[in-house]
């Protein structure tokens, strides 16, 4: 049987390039040959390997929702060799795209439930895919609460969409910046995301929660949700670990016996608890 070579990437063209925050970019990517575009499909929570030929590959989640056809978006901060090369690419440049990899958020199982989303910094892009996925079929879900914060006002990503979500009446958004990161005309909260979460505890009745972002946020956020009644298997997170192959072979992303790229990146808090603390 013909084995698909999982290391040959799709070729994608950079259709749009927006600067979200200092050193943080969002790329809209379109497939170079149309047969790939039709064959390609993914679900919320999956990630991909974005490669600049000659520099290497980097791992980010697919930030655009699966309900939007014809393109995929990704948001990344330029910190290493590959992400800096990615940031220097121009519109219409061709880069490599390998994916989709990993398991998905079980969005179908959340119909009729309230959704609580807690994230920080560039933890928002993987969950933006979930948020738009929910907003595109808004009537199927209960109320949607989002807690999002960043170091400073400039570091908030998707500023236009945050504004849009604020104005919607079916989304209540707690926006915050770390103390000292606010600007004079900043009207929203000031404080770390876990403290804002503790000041406005969400109700756990018929609700699920998603926590994503830097490991410190996961380690602080999960116990708070536990305190206000969220069962361990109703709290989801997406783990970020070093990844190279994306298909569970290269060994970089292991946490105990679990391969974050193949068995994750989406895990319930219950699964995280019986994994060794190596993430």
């Amino acid at each position, binding site marked *: 049987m013909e084995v698909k070579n999982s290391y040959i990437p799709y070729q994608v063209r950079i259709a749009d390039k927006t600067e979200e925050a200092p050193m943080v970019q969002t790329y809209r990517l379109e497939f170079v040959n149309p047969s790939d575009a039709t064959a390609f499909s993914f679900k919320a929570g999956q990630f991909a390997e974005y490669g600049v030929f000659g520099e290497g590959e980097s791992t980010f989640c697919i930030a655009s929702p699966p309900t939007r056809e014809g393109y995929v978006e990704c948001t990344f901060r330029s910190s290493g060799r590959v992400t800096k090369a990615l940031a220097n690419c121009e519109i219409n440049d061709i880069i490599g795209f390998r994916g989709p990899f990993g398991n998905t958020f079980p969005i179908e199982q959340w119909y009729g439930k309230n959704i609580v989303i807690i994230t920080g910094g560039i933890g928002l892009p993987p969950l933006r895919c979930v948020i738009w996925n929910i907003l595109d079929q808004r009537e199927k879900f209960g109320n949607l609460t989002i807690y999002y914060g960043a170091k400073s006002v400039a570091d908030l990503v998707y500023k236009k969409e945050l504004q849009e979500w604020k104005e919607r009446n079916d989304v209540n958004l707690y926006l915050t910046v770390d103390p000292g990161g606010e600007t004079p005309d900043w009207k929203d909260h000031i404080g770390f995301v876990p403290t804002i979460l503790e000041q406005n505890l969400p109700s756990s009745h018929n609700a699920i929660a998603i926590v994503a972002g830097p490991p410190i946020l996961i380690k602080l956020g999960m116990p708070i949700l536990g305190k206000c009644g969220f069962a361990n298997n109703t709290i989801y997170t997406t783990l970020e670990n070093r990844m190279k192959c994306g298909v569970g072979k290269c060994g970089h992303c292991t946490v105990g016996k679990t391969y974050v790229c193949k068995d994750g990146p989406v895990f319930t808090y219950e699964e995280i608890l019986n994994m060794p603390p*190596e993430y």
Partner: protein
Amino acid sequence: MPLTRSKPKTKKHLSDNDYQMEQSLISSANLQAFFETLLQSGRIVVAPVLKQSGKVFFQPVQAYSEVATDYIQTAFSAKSVVFPKVETLFSFVRKDGEITLTDSLNRIPETVVWGLRPCDAAGFDYLTEFFLRENPDSYFKTRKEHTTLITFGCKEADNACFCTSVGLNPGNTTGSDILMTFMNEECYVEIMTEKGQQAVALAPSLFKASEVRQKDAFLAKPATRFSIDEIKDKIKHAYASAEWKQVSLGCFSCGACAFACPTCTCFDIQDEGTQDKGVRLRCWDACGFGMFTRHSSGHNPKNNQTERRRQRLMHKFNYSVDNLGIVSCVGCGRCIRVCPAHLNIFENILSVTKD
């Protein structure tokens, strides 16, 4: 709401070898003729060669005289035939905005590995399980299909060998296409697979028919260090043992044990060349290195040597059992011989699993 996750299909244990085909005999003199037939057949023959440093390496050879005979084990395993230290995944050229990728999967030569030990051959069996069972790896698959493994039973073992402790033995046939055992002036040949038959069919006149023979009298008897079943369930709760720190204090965090090991499969993907013309390479990597798990933000989930050495041992004796159903250590003892501090894997396993 359990998430979708593949259940590990339990595989038969490494040492079950119920697919023996047939057996025959070849005299030691005809062995050289058989070797030369393989050479003339256009295949690349990789065999152990003794080097001035006193170590023995697998290396392509052109004549039977180069092949080393009285050695216990090679320094590196033969996995580099199917999982090379550096492998080109594809090469790319960028010309006026268009990128063309070419991979060299169609140019992989037919290879014969001569002079393997039964533990190495069992290592190939594990590699096949690991690379081909889920998300099959096309590079490994092509190389493995073009490789024939001819194994020789061990006449003697040194005190780093512990294959009998992981359910193998010096006469085990798992993974080999042909297993030969020296018996005085002759070689008892067990042909295990079609590839083995094709190799023997190149010079059928050299082989004589033979009844099934007992090999034990002609094989080495390495000491059994522990019972694998006992270790398998004790290691489940060995993660928090205080012994890990003591066991890994001597570790230098280099990659020698992982690169010499027949069953270590970790790798890194790196690009070389410029953005206009270059290659994407797959190179060996090792969980012992500090950079292996380091995020670009500097956060490192395993940032000291205790955690890294624990990952290596837990993966081989616990995680691999949960994920693939088989222990991923074949007891060849290379990691003990090659380690600069001679850290001892079975002594460490015993000390972290003692209650």
